[in-house]
């Protein structure tokens, strides 16, 4: 079949302008395919990072312990401890779990936290605040606090508090000034404002305070354990699997971010569907283009096909000559379109350096290999009809023309 390939190549090179045009047409289709892949992929990535990027990917929250029962041998309940009124559930053995969780593949960062509610008081000003105690040094493990700082530092520490911009403004508090924080448990601490952040999220900027884990321990009277463990993953799409894994490993109730994010997932799905739709059309265009060009070539070369058949070329040989032309066109157009697509995507900023106002193209999601493979397969399929027509050319009428 090497010989059929030679003839196919010769046919393609014999009419260079036409072949170049055909390959360019295929390349444009592949380019669109790749552009759509990068755009849809980048867009999904962008939306996820905007909505989920600052969230914990897998979260473990303390459950209030079930009331302990005292059960007699006969099965009668003898005594029940009543559930406490105040929420004081803790992940008491958190410290022992942390190294285990950190060792799970795909886990990028783990942030043990103590969370609770309180009041900030400065002079006559009182504001309700939701307090998060984080490990000093891990302030930016989940939320990119460092990136949102407008004043001071995100670093928490003994006697320090980091507040949102709106909250600081409400309290007319500026860097270095002190504020009184009273926890829901009634414990009070005097803290110095060491940093101000602005995320653009009103609930965050107007009602969140970050303190160090030791400060939170004092405030919420929790000498050990934490209330919440937040986990960041390398791949947020792996949250479901990783949560399961952590659950199996630790027995803790690890919840992936996808729980309760059905609408977002649906929207992303719909977007991906649109992408498939457009990509399918790009492929169909390629198939139709290749098929019609080869059909024309088949017709133009009827006398030659007749001669080849008279000289002892079998039907399969003729089929192969034309299918090989389709495959070569698909391969060259595919590679050219993929290269063009890659070059066109190069100027777009990377996912990390994305700037609002431009398209969130992701060059790594161009599906180059898939685009080339599908194009070659499509071009081969497109050439089958013309190839069959060519193999059925009647030598007598073809040569007699």
């Amino acid at each position: 079949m090497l010989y059929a390939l030679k003839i196919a190549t010769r046919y393609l090179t014999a009419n260079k302008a036409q072949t170049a045009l055909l390959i360019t047409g295929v390349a444009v289709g592949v380019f669109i395919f790749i552009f759509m892949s990068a755009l849809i992929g980048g867009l999904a990535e962008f939306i996820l990072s905007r909505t989920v990027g600052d969230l914990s990917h897998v979260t473990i929250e303390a459950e209030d312990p079930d009331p302990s029962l005292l059960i007699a041998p006969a099965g009668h309940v003898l005594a029940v401890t009543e559930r406490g009124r105040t929420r004081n559930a803790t992940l008491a053995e958190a410290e022992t779990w942390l190294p285990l969780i950190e060792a799970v593949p795909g886990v990028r960062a783990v942030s043990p936290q103590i969370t609770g509610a309180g009041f900030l008081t400065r002079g006559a000003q009182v504001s309700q605040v939701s307090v998060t105690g984080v490990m000093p040094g891990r302030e930016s493990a989940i939320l990119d606090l460092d990136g949102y700082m407008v004043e001071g530092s995100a670093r928490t520490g003994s006697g320090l508090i980091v507040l949102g911009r709106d909250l600081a403004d409400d309290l007319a508090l500026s860097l270095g000034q002190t504020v009184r924080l009273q926890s829901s448990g009634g414990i009070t601490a005097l803290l110095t404002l060491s940093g101000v952040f602005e995320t653009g999220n009103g609930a965050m900027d107007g009602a969140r305070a970050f303190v160090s884990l030791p400060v939170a321990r004092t405030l919420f009277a929790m000498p050990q354990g934490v209330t919440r463990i937040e986990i960041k993953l390398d791949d947020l799409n792996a949250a479901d699997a990783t949560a399961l894994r952590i659950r199996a490993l630790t027995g803790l109730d690890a919840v992936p971010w996808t729980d309760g994010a059905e609408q977002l997932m649906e929207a992303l799905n719909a977007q991906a569907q649109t992408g498939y739709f457009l990509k399918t059309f790009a492929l169909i265009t390629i198939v139709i283009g290749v098929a019609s060009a080869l059909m024309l070539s088949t017709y133009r070369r009827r006398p030659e096909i007749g001669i080849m058949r008279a000289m002892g070329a079998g039907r399969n040989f003729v089929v192969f000559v034309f299918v090989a032309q389709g495959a070569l066109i698909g391969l060259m157009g595919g590679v050219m379109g993929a290269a063009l697509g890659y070059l066109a995507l190069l100027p777009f900023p990377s996912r990390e350096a994305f700037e609002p106002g431009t398209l969130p193209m992701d060059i790594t999601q161009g599906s180059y290999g898939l685009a080339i493979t599908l194009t070659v397969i499509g071009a081969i399929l497109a050439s089958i009809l013309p190839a069959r027509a060519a193999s059925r050319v009647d030598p007598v009428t073809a040569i007699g023309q």
Partner: protein
Amino acid sequence: MSTLLEVRDLFKTYGTGEAETRVLRGLSLRLEAGEMAALLGPSGAGKSTLLTILGTLMKPTSGSYEMLDQDMISADDRALTDFRNAHIGFVFQFHNLLPDFTALENVIFPTAVREGRETPTARTRGRDLLERMGLADRIDFPTANLSGGQKQRVAVARALMNRPELVLADEPTGNLDRASAKQVMDLIGEINREEGTTFLISTHDEKIAASCRRQIEVADGVVTG
């Protein structure tokens, strides 16, 4: 002499109803191995039709055809394709060569298509044949740049490539001037004498017909002489 091929009671009818054309009407013919025969007859007599049937490119409406003791009527397309490749060479009046290939590539096509590639042995034979046709300086020429006479000589070389027992030529000199026609016929005669290849050549040219040892007249769908 042994019999190369024999057809008996050949009928060939084109079309149906109003457009029905009965071309061959019970034609019988025998060719011995090594013959050099001219096929004569008025235009429309059925010369090309007969050559096409003998070349296994078309089946007669009825009749029998045996070549090299094989039944050509019942054989299927695949078998006939292989048979043609091995035993029959063609020279046509028009559309003879593959225009995007060189003279040598055209000549070795029948071998290459059988072997699946262009072997060095095939190239050597192709070169020899082209030299013999007086085309030593045109071996790697694109055929599109050859003159009509040169093209027909390339076609003769290709017809001989697989050392077939039979070469069918349908007005091979119909498009050539007298000098080129004579050159082509001289080469055919030489091959016939030296290699014993059987030639059946249709022509309207009395001189060319006279240069063949046998003349076969076709008229009204049968051989008349």
